[in-house]
């Protein structure tokens, strides 16, 4: 069945381990709003190949489903939502503590 959701590339920064997203320019960002969005399979595979070509910067890139209904792509799976924030029991830690 054809996929219906747009997708972004999520990974972990090599040095810090922090969650990062691939940008349209082929770099990496901590800002979800700056993540490149793939709207079809071909674009998704192209982004993934671009991400995998940068193992010196980011580890374990993968595609994550998002909705495009706000200022930034909105991850659909709760696992990805947690990754945008940090531990739910520690609001003083992770992205949520930085107001991102």
């Amino acid at each position, binding site marked *: 069945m054809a996929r219906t959701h747009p997708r972004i590339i999520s990974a972990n920064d090599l*040095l*810090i*381990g*922090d969650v990062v997203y691939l940008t349209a320019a082929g770099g990496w960002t901590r800002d979800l709003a700056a993540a490149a969005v793939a709207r079809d399979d071909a674009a998704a595979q192209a982004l993934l190949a671009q991400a995998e070509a940068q193992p010196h910067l980011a580890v374990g890139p993968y595609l994550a489903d998002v909705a495009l209904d706000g200022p930034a792509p909105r991850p659909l799976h*709760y*696992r990805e939502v947690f*990754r945008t924030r940090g531990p739910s029991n520690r609001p003083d830690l992770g992205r949520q503590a930085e107001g991102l």
Partner: protein
Amino acid sequence: MYRYDDFDADYLRARNAEFRDQVARRIDGRLSEDEFKPLRLQNGLYLQLHAYMLRVAIPYGTLSSDQMRVLAEVAERWDRGYGHFTTRQNIQFNWVRLADTPDILDRLAEAGMHAIQTSGNCIRNVTADHFAGAAADEIEDPRPVAELIRQWSTSHPEFLFLPRKFKIAVSGTPADRAVTMAHDIGLRALRGPGGEVGYTVILGGGMGRTPMLGKVVREFVPKPDLLPYLEAILAVYNLHGRRDNKYKARIKILVHETGLEALKGEIEAEFARRKRLFDGPEVVPSAEELARIAAHFAPPVLPVRAEVSAIEARAREVDPAFALWAEVNTHPHRAPGHAIVTVSLKAPGEAPGDATSDQMRALADLADRHSLGELRISHLQNVVLPHVARDDLPALHAALVRHGLATANAGLITDIIACPGLDYCALATARSIPIAQDIARRFAAPEKARAIGAFEIKISGCINACGHHHVGHVGILGLEKAGIESYQITLGGDPGPDAAVGERTGPGLAAKEVGPAMERLVAAYLAHRAGHDERFVDTYRRVGPEPFRSAIYAREAA
């Protein structure tokens, strides 16, 4: 306590230097992630949801006050000021940076600690009874045997690439506080016909997606035969364990598929071969070496004290909070007038097993003052001060209150095991910590929890079962169901000498339904129990699952 000798220290220095070079080569691109990943895992470094996590071994749960201070320092200098004590008597630092890990490992090595074999398909950190060397009910201190196994298994070239990870637990008492029935190998001390101490070897237990209780493969192994016997088991497993399917690779599956008797025949034949090697002039640990190890665990010289402490008795009369804590969080010590103290890391509302750097330092200071500088980490994710004079209990309690460490709930319903779950862990399918926090808040009133009595809730955030949910009186397993977190309840599990795997009650519950379901379950238990001393798991065994299943799935009246 065991102290590293020059060989250990040199080995760690060399190992850390090797890892420092590997990290440098990963950062400058000479190593790919595929090449680097097994190397970092062999040194305890995971990549989790939000950051790198370093898992440091605390062999058989024993550490000194100085070592605890170093853990506090690591948390403060290189992490976010706290650490998480795990069900395998390890500590995890959740926010380390890749380039810092060699420095962290060097600092740990200075204190005789490391992260070797806290991951990978090898023999993992050996665990043991957290009351070892202090408990009144002990046949012998299991730690000399656990230390011997640690030395034998560390970088043992034959067993570094097993079909899957391998966990060994050692108990010195039939009371079994080490969950020996749910390990790849469980060892339980017992006396032989001549009064000599040996070990029952229990094989093929484990949790995970296929929970199984271990089976006794040899009722009595004399201590001198223990290493060759273990080596025989590992050799047979190494040969026949399945490498084609990681879900069928643990030894429990081999035992199940081969049958205990057939496997036992192979183990005994291998044992005969290995024994000859161990009896050779070079391989066997000599009697002197065994004595040297044992000397590190010599029973502490404690002052002679009266069985009953008048100081404690007076404090109990005037301070109900102390009285409750002393009742719940102390365990009989073998020396009159002394107690084993459990310091709970389960204050309702806190993440089970987490301790701040300040708390770690406070515990180290209190261990120096009251417990001969020694601490233990339990698989229940608490800290233990093993040798406390009962006269000192009021002062110790007052100090613990100041540091938020005086929760009186050891073994009670709020003393919940919870893995890090989806708040940290890359493997998790659901969160564990918020579920534990919610349940603990519902039973936070100390007198309420005390009235319920012994009650073990254990929560895992995925099928790997790090939270021991299979052997919880109540087990809670977090899964994903149709895109939301869903919690499966099991009842009747038991980690102790009458070990049992819990039985599923029915469909999973949404996160917000778990706490109310636990309140209904406890109400049903209180209505059905034969008396205050009948634990939930015993009531469950007596009356069966139905009243409890009904309670869990009953909906609140509209």
